[in-house]
C-alpha cells in the first residue's frame, strides 16, 4: 500500500506560537490553506485551523475581523501526527477516528517534514485508476460427467 510519503505536501507552511493571529489568518487565506502546523524549534507543538481562528473573530460590515492576539491563543495542542512511512490506509483511519482533516508528518527526529490533508486524499481518489470489478454475467458450471477429471 502506498505511504503518506507519496502523497504528502512537502513544502509546508507553518507558523510559530508567537506569530500574530491576524497575520497567520491572512496568510492562510492568501494561500488558500485551512490548516497550518505550529512549530517550535522545528518540532510540531500545535495545529491552527481556520475554524480555530474564527472562534477568535467576528464579522463587521461583512468582513471577518480577527482579534489581535497570538497564535498560541487559538491553536490546538492535542495534535495527531504521522510519519512518512504511515500507510495511506492508516492515515485515513486516523482522520476518520479523530474527525480531523489534516495530519502533520514528522520524521524520526520529530521534525516536521510534510503535511497530508483530506484535499490530498481527494486528489488521490481522483487520480488513481480505481475500478470496481464487475462480476461475469454468467457462471460456469461443470457438467456432472466431467466431475472427477483433472481441471
Amino acid at each position, binding site marked *: 500500500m502506498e505511504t503518506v510519503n507519496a502523497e504528502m505536501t512537502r513544502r509546508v507552511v507553518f507558523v510559530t506560537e508567537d506569530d500574530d493571529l491576524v497575520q497567520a489568518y491572512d496568510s492562510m487565506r492568501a494561500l488558500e490553506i485551512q490548516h497550518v502546523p505550529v512549530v517550535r524549534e522545528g518540532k510540531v507543538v500545535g495545529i491552527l485551523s481556520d475554524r480555530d481562528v*474564527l472562534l477568535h473573530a467576528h464579522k*463587521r460590515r461583512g468582513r471577518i475581523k480577527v482579534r489581535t492576539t497570538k497564535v498560541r491563543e487559538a491553536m490546538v495542542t492535542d495534535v495527531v501526527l504521522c510519519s512518512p512511512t504511515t500507510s*495511506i490506509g492508516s492515515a485515513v483511519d486516523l482522520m476518520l477516528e479523530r474527525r480531523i482533516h489534516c495530519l502533520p508528518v514528522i520524521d524520526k527526529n520529530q521534525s516536521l517534514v510534510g503535511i497530508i490533508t483530506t484535499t490530498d486524499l481527494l486528489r488521490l481518489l481522483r487520480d488513481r485508476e480505481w475500478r470496481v470489478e464487475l462480476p461475469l454475467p454468467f457462471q460456469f458450471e461443470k457438467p456432472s460427467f466431467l466431475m472427477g477429471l483433472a481441471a
Partner: protein
Amino acid sequence: MPTKMPQVREYMTPTPHTIASETPLKEVQELMRQNRVRHLPVKKGEALVGIISDRSVKSALGSTGENVLTAEDIMIPDPFSVSPQTNLDEVVAAMAEEKYGCALIRDDDGKLVGIFTTVDACRALRQVLETFYPDRN
C-alpha cells in the same frame, strides 16, 4: 475483467439532515453539534435553497446582531450538486479543485437524496484501499 468507476451514490450519506431557512444561527450551531455534521442543506418549504457550513456559522456568530441572523442570511445559495449516477472521480475532482467541503446529491427532480462530504470521501478511499490491498497491516 470488466470494471467500472464507482458512482457517488455508493458512497454518499443518504437522506441527510436539513434545516429550514428561517432557523436562527444559534439553533443551526446546536443542530450541527448534536448531529456531528459540518454542513447542513437549507430548505425553504420543500425547496432546497442553499448550504450552510460550520465555518460560516462560527464567523457569523461573532458578528454584531447575530441574534437576528438566520440560516438564510449566511447560506451559500446554489450549492455544488451532482446526480447520484455521477462518477466518483468527477465529484472528488471538483471538490479538490474548488475546495468544496461537500457535494449535494440531487435526483432528476431536484430532490435532495444525499450528501457527499470529505469524510465520505475518506470512507470511500478506505474501502477502495481495502479492495486493492486486502492484506495491508
